């Protein structure tokens, strides 16, 4: 396959198929460095602190949080929307970029999909503990009961959320695992026969062999799952935005919410992918696979979605003014210039202004600089949800019930605990699973490897001649020829 030299190579270091396996699968069977143990122990500690705070919340009650009569949703729902948003980049990279045949997705899709699953686990935690009595979670399910049966309310976006989040988690998990099976088989076949790793990866890889028929079905299923995931990912954050948009509260009751939330989700998700992938490529020595070209592409997506979010901020203000609604206008002015002005301007600065540096190609291609910007994106998108939720609630229609909200140590510990959970799961994944889709990367080697891509046409033909079987070994295939 010849590709124009304009396309930059996506795999560097003149890799062979064998080297790709060695680079990606090799470390899984080798010993982990002490740094991995120390980091994982630390994140696990933070995670358990979060679990302790959750236990305390459930034992004592929601009164341990900073919520009050006016601000009934704050930190927990902010964290919920934040984590769901983080998850969206994984599905975008794996599904939408697959449908658009973007080859650069191959290096990052596996880790981004894993991130999606872990982020949805973190997200799911918050609405459950916010219920106060999480053991009654099954009330959300349309189960026959002794009250009639009195069924769940299908008019409620909170119920739609239950269906959307659980479907999203299930489909993401299946999509991720479908891609993992062949790579786990590679790990299995490299492990020493009879060893524990061999047995474990045999079970995990379901007996995959890589026959022509298996691969044919694999490709068909991947494409269908991608086709299903694409509208799914858009629907999930749209439904999350309905939690706000279908209410009649000024600041929430806006039709722009679904596209605005989806763009924000992709933006924050790419921020998190950049944060994790820049560390991963550094620590696991994957610079030949996650190249500057990848970071460049992700930085571009980040900037574009950041501007879409910024456009939504401006539209909200315009509509608030144009609607002529007194309450609507007040809420938006209060957002930018009220007591929570700092959170609003932190959001605008981090999401709209700071990513503008990505206009400069040199900056898009300096990993540590992009890393710092990605941290700002994470902070900015967390604040966006905080701004939407808290500033719309804290000053309601009666001035006598205006209240300020501040989180307690319990809420902050649960938030840091969710980061601990996310990072612990990611570290375990990076240690025991192939972080890069090995089989898929091999399949693009001949179109995107640096020994093939970016060549002139003449050089490509020469290369092809060198790798093709010698002409003597391949006699002309003439069916009339007498068979030997």
């Amino acid at each position: 396959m010849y590709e124009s030299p304009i396309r930059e190579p996506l795999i560097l270091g003149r890799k062979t198929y064998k080297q790709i396996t060695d680079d990606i699968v090799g470390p899984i069977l080798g010993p982990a460095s002490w740094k991995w143990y120390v980091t994982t122990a630390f994140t696990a500690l933070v995670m358990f602190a979060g679990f302790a705070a959750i236990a305390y919340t459930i034992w004592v009650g929601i009164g341990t949080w900073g919520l009050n009569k006016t601000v009934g949703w704050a930190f927990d729902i902010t964290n919920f929307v934040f984590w769901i948003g983080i998850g969206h980049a994984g599905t975008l990279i794996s599904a939408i970029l697959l449908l658009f045949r973007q080859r650069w997705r191959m290096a990052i899709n596996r880790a981004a999909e894993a991130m999606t699953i872990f982020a949805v686990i973190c997200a799911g935690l918050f609405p459950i503990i916010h219920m106060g009595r999480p053991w009654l979670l099954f009330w959300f399910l349309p189960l026959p009961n002794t009250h009639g049966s009195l069924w769940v309310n299908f008019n409620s976006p909170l119920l739609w959320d239950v269906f959307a989040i659980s479907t999203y988690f299930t489909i993401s998990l299946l999509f991720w695992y479908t891609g993992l099976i062949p790579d786990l088989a590679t790990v299995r076949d490299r492990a020493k026969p009879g060893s524990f790793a061999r047995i474990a990866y045999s079970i995990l890889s379901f007996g995959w062999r890589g026959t022509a028929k298996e691969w044919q079905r694999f490709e068909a299923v991947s494409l269908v799952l991608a086709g299903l995931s694409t509208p799914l990912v858009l629907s999930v954050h749209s439904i999350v935005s309905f939690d706000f948009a279908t209410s009649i509260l000024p600041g929430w009751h806006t039709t722009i919410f679904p596209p605005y939330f989806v763009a924000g989700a992709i933006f924050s998700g790419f921020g998190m992918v950049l944060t994790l992938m820049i560390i991963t490529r550094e620590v696991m020595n994957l610079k030949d696979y996650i190249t500057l070209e990848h970071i460049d592409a992700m930085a571009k997506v980040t900037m574009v979605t950041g501007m879409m979010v910024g456009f939504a901020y401006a539209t909200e203000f315009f509509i608030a003014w144009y609607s002529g609604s007194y309450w609507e206008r007040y809420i938006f002015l209060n957002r930018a210039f009220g007591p929570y002005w700092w959170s609003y301007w932190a959001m605008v600065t981090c999401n709209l202004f700071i990513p503008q540096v990505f206009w400069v190609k040199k900056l898009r291609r300096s990993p540590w600089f992009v890393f710092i910007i990605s941290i700002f994106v994470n902070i900015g998108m967390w604040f966006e949800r905080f701004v939407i939720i808290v500033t719309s609630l804290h000053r309601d229609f009666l001035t006598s019930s205006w209240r300020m909200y501040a989180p307690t140590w319990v809420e902050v510990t649960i938030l840091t605990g969710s980061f601990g959970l996310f990072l612990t799961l990611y570290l375990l994944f990076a240690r025991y699973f192939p972080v890069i889709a090995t089989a898929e990367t091999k399949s693009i080697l001949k179109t995107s490897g640096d020994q093939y891509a970016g060549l002139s046409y003449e050089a490509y033909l020469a290369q092809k001649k060198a790798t093709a079987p010698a002409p003597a070994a391949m006699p002309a295939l003439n069916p009339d020829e007498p068979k030997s």
Partner: protein
Amino acid sequence: MAKYLIGLYDDDEKLLSAVEHIKREGVPIHEVCTPFPVHGLDTILGLKKSRLPDAAFVYGALGTLTALSMQIYMYTIDWPTNIGGKSHLPFPSFIPVTFELTVLFAGVLLFLSYLAVNRLYPGQRARVFHPRQTDDAFVVAIADTAAWDKAKELFQKTGAFEIQVVEL
């Protein structure tokens, strides 16, 4: 325990022309195993198109019907609840759950069918011809012992780097 003659290739383009050649010489190919999906291999081997995408459509339609009938039964037939005077058959409100269940049914049942037709499940013994077939080697396996001599010759001719007999 069956015996197979296997030829190993180190390149996907070599494999494609070799498989084409072997096929044209009339040697029955038992199986071709590759470390990654090789495009065009299924046409050369004459594999039929997978019907899994069609199955996914049926599963999805099943999900749509389940979701709609569930909601209409619960909300309109079994116990019509008056919530703010809203309709007992609020069709637009049913769309999100219907969509999600369509995707859920299609995805989950498709995944299970995929595992079933490939005979993949935890605990399945991997009948691997050569440990390098999931790494960097492309394996062509011949089961018919009568054709082994000819197959061996063809393997050599088409540039296989290794030829061996394996027992699975």
